[in-house]
């Protein structure tokens, strides 16, 4: 009995060493792996974002029966409105999956810094958003007869998505704890993310109007600044938001 106890204690000591080796990056990777694995099995989140995005594009396509030039001028606005609304669906669902079965508690119980959970969910949400955007862009290009595959525009979409998802992940973690989470997230998110969307629309619009990269560099710099601010603020606030 005493021998068994000694063995058990030794195993626990080994366990403690193991626990300390759980690195920041490894734990973030685990959350991203888990989210992608579950999503590629159920397609619950991406499919709803995608169907919604395609419907919005189709509705705008029929609602704005404009000439080619005017269509080009509204492209940036339509595109970002589509991404923003579809994004809220994804952010809500991504956090609801954690909350509904108590999995958020499971994450919070892990002996890692809680910013790991934030960054894990942030990278997962960003991946979902980029996947949806990668499918929406060619569809949009065909329907609106506009070439969206420009390196500058793709960079703006990436920067805009980072800003949107960084603050969106934080606010989704907050709203998911309320009964009115589906309504609350857009109400909280859109006023905060307005600045990112504005800079993204300006930059995208400029690039689609064949402006040079230098012409839109102010908006792009603004996007980079928002990304840094939102990621840093979310990193600092996440712990207090998920704790009761």
């Amino acid at each position: 009995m005493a021998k068994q106890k000694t063995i058990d204690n030794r195993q626990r000591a080994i366990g403690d060493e193991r626990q300390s080796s759980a690195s920041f990056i490894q734990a973030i990777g685990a959350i991203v792996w888990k989210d992608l694995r579950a999503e590629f099995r159920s397609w619950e989140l991406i499919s709803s974002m995608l169907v919604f995005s395609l419907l919005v594009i189709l509705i705008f396509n029929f609602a704005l029966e404009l000439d080619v030039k005017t269509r080009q001028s509204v492209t940036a606005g339509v595109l970002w409105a589509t991404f923003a609304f579809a994004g809220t669906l994804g952010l809500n669902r991504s956090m609801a999956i954690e909350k509904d079965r108590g999995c958020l508690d499971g994450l919070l119980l892990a002996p890692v810094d809680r910013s790991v959970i934030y960054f894990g969910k942030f990278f997962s949400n960003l991946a979902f958003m980029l996947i949806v955007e990668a499918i929406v862009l060619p569809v949009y290009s065909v329907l609106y007869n506009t070439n969206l595959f420009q390196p500058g525009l793709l960079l703006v979409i990436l920067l805009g998505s980072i800003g949107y998802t960084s603050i969106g992940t934080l606010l989704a973690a907050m709203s998911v704890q309320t009964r009115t989470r589906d309504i609350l997230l857009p109400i909280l998110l859109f006023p905060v993310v307005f600045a990112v969307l504005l800079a993204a629309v300006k930059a995208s619009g400029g690039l689609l109007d064949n402006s040079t990269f230098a012409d839109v560099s102010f908006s792009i710099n603004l996007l980079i600044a928002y990304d840094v601010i939102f990621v840093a603020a979310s990193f600092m606030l996440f712990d207090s938001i998920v704790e009761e």
Partner: protein
Amino acid sequence: MITVKKLVKRFGLKTVLRGMDFEVKPGEFVALLGPNGAGKTTFLRILASLSRPSLGEVNIAGFKLPNEAAQVRARLGVVSHLPLLYGDLTAEENLRFYARMYGITNAQLRITEVLRMIGLENRRRDLVRTYSRGMQQRLAIGRAVLHDPEIMLFDEPYTGLDQDASSMLDDVLKTVAAQGRTVVMTSHDLARAEELATRFDILSRGVIADSATRRQVKKSNLLEFYKQALAG
């Protein structure tokens, strides 16, 4: 192993725990009993570092909460009435995910060991959403013991289980306790608590109203002890 002094927890104007004192020695299995709203779940959430105390001291395995929460979490295994598992992952994938979160090396070996212990080795590649409630609860225990914690917290683990599933869970809980772990379990099921625990604490109106060991509460008298504690 667990020392709690003058613990107070307030939610706005409502005070749930009112200066609670609580102590658990290594290897003890404590059943925390009490009516709905007594503060059992709130107390367990504070021990699990999921909630911050408003006032008071909480010390677990030599670490203070909330300042040393990460060290405490590394030594805790928590099972609640929710499984804390992902339905779209298999049992093995769920355990692999938690193994990575806890930084367990030789994870595959440990996962196989745990799946064997909870009797789910043959269903390891099935999605968790296809599991019965009882199987999910067994897997939840597997998740909680994966990192070989010293202390286990069970919050109403029998909720929603049928008779067969409850009996199976009894066996798993006995195995977990027999491995020398310190266990705190909240429950409404006095019969099950009587069968498993070595000590019974009655939580009423935010404080421990009474406490007794298994020897003090003679068999089949737990109900009487419980009623007297609540009445007092």
